């Protein structure tokens, strides 16, 4: 099977999962007691005619199986429905919040990978030496610590105590310089404002991103580091590495040329699989740092009983995960030619 056909078949396999996600969220959301229209109108004694009209508008007066049917049809056409609370299309709301969460997750993974891989390799290289012990302890603490607690500690230390970094009021790189408060904060702020205001905005974004990135990325860092170390140790014991050693190849070259690339395969898998856990973690981190991303969107949507928004966002998370897994599988097959494309013998 060619890589293209493999990709296609993986995409087809994902369809039942996506339908499953729609079904599960639809069932859960429709079980939620309470009336979204009443929450929207704030008080219970609204005009019955208005309620009826709104119910008709969001299709809440139709029987449940009909709503499910229309919802699935709509999703297939790329229509996730209208948000009841915000009164705009769900997809629009998601796309509005998406860049923030992507920014957060990508920077968290960048932080995690750039720290964990060198540390993991180093730990494997110096097995049972102090470097190894220290990095193992860091990894152990990292996987045992709640991410939001790291966020709280960072805020206390760096925002309140030292006053170096902001704790909330996220700035986005596309914001207009006129809308950004404290544009000239930080050491570089005043200089950058003089060069170009948008540069200063970008600098403020970076300053705002540092603490949430560390909070969200620590768990991923620790997880990747543990796997990196284990994989490197195993690879370094393989026959071909022994052979290279016997030929007198230096340990450095073995690490770089022979062991490193092979050991990255499982790491790729973990990054792909942990995408969901990072998105879930973003719910907490966005709450701690008051960032208006997808995570907070879904929490407020659940609180407001905004059915279409809850379903749409959950579905979106599912799509991200499924796509992540497919990309992981394909890149795996691409990196390692030994991986078969799902054929048995």
């Amino acid at each position, binding site marked *: 099977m060619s890589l293209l056909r493999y990709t296609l078949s993986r995409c087809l396999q994902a369809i*039942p*999962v996506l339908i*499953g*996600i729609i079904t*599960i*969220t639809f*069932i*859960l*959301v429709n*079980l*939620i*007691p*309470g009336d979204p229209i009443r929450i929207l109108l704030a008080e219970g004694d609204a005009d019955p005619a208005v309620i009826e009209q709104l119910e008709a508008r969001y299709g809440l007066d139709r029987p449940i199986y009909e709503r499910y049917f229309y919802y699935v049809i709509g999703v297939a056409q790329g229509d996730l429905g209208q948000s009841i609370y915000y009164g705009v299309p769900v997809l629009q709301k998601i796309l509005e919040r998406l860049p923030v969460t992507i920014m957060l997750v990508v920077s968290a993974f960048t932080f995690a990978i750039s720290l964990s891989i060198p540390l993991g390799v180093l730990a494997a290289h110096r097995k049972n030496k102090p470097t190894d012990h220290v990095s193992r302890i860091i990894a*152990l*603490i990292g*996987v*045992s*610590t*709640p*991410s*939001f*607690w790291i966020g*709280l*500690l960072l*805020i*206390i230390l760096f925002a*309140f*105590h030292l006053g170096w970094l902001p704790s909330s009021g996220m700035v986005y790189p596309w914001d207009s310089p006129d809308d950004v408060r404290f544009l000239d904060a930080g050491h570089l702020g005043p200089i950058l404002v003089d060069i170009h205001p948008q540069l200063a905005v970008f600098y403020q974004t970076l300053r705002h991103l540092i603490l949430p990135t560390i909070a969200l990325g620590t*768990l991923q860092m*620790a*997880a990747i580091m*543990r*796997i990196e170390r*284990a994989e490197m140790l195993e690879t370094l014991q393989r026959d071909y590495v022994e052979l290279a050693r016997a030929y007198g190849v230096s340990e450095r070259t073995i690490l770089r040329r022979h062991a490193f690339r092979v050991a990255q395969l*499982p790491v790729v*898998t*973990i990054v792909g*699989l*942990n995408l*969901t*856990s990072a*998105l*879930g*973690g973003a*719910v*907490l981190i966005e*709450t*701690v740092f008051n960032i208006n991303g997808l995570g907070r969107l*879904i*929490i407020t949507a*659940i609180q407001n*009983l905004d059915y279409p928004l*809850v379903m749409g*966002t*959950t579905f979106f*998370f*599912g799509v991200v*995960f*499924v796509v992540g*897994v497919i990309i992981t599988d394909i890149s795996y097959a691409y990196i390692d030619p030994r991986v078969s494309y799902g054929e048995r013998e």
Partner: protein
Amino acid sequence: MSVGEAQTTEQAGEVDPEEVEGEDLGWRYSLKKVKADTTARFGLYVIALMGALATFAWIDYYLFDYQIANSLWYHPARDPDEVNQLLPPVFDSEGTWAHPLGTDSRGRDVLVRIVYGSRISMTVGVVATAIGLVGGTVVGAVSGYYGGWVDDVLMRIVETIYSIPFLVLIIAFMAALGTRDVMFATIGVGIAIIPVFARLIRSRVLSVREEEYVEAARAAGLRDRKIIQRHIIPNSFAPVMVQATLQIGICILIVAGLSFLGYGAQPPTPDWGQMLSESRNYMIPNPWLSVWPGLAILFTVMGFNLLGDGLQDALDPRSR
């Protein structure tokens, strides 16, 4: 939160079928090895300590309505009569030994609340993991043993649950039931982690199923259910034990996050996640309030991770 899971699943898939039988025989040896491992032993002590505290808190809460704590020290839930709000810990110049870790915004002693918070965390961690383990074993064993369309359907459902972030799934589940009760949070976490165990067990079953002794059992006319019960599940025991230990820690982290968002133990019940949530409003006057519950979570989860790692080393046939 799917950290340890992915790791062991990965390795479970790799285990050579020939080595499986050895695991079962070497139980006593493995236990000895866990006991000899310093880090695993430390993990065991931590878990024993937290377990003891949680048991004590349960007894006091359930049988005596916090009267033991109240007479020995302070009431962990009720507001005190004599109000000493936001007292700093003892090493601060204004701290006193009467409240070693200080007091919260209502003047309640933080140390007592930390100790009593172990009740919720330990219980939820263990019960949720048990739910996930039982559910996952049933799903994984059936799926792996029968294969075919049963496997397809079950695995698609498992993948579906797995693809929604834990927190989102559990909060939607609790919203659907119209509750914020910690009992339903536990059930939600348990259901959300079924995929972890289902996949692990399934991969074990697939490798054990082709074993000669299973085929012999089948040839001898043993029924499917008996084969699953007698041969397949016992032979998948070691990696599942490791995963379950690590998973308790992960569940404690998930529930702490849920409580932090307000979907867990409700005030005034002492709970670590909820204490952290409350502390956010007092970060400037008393930052220590945000420190202690997190340390308690870290300590407990670390205990389970240490024991899990130790078990893995001891039960992994390759490291013998």
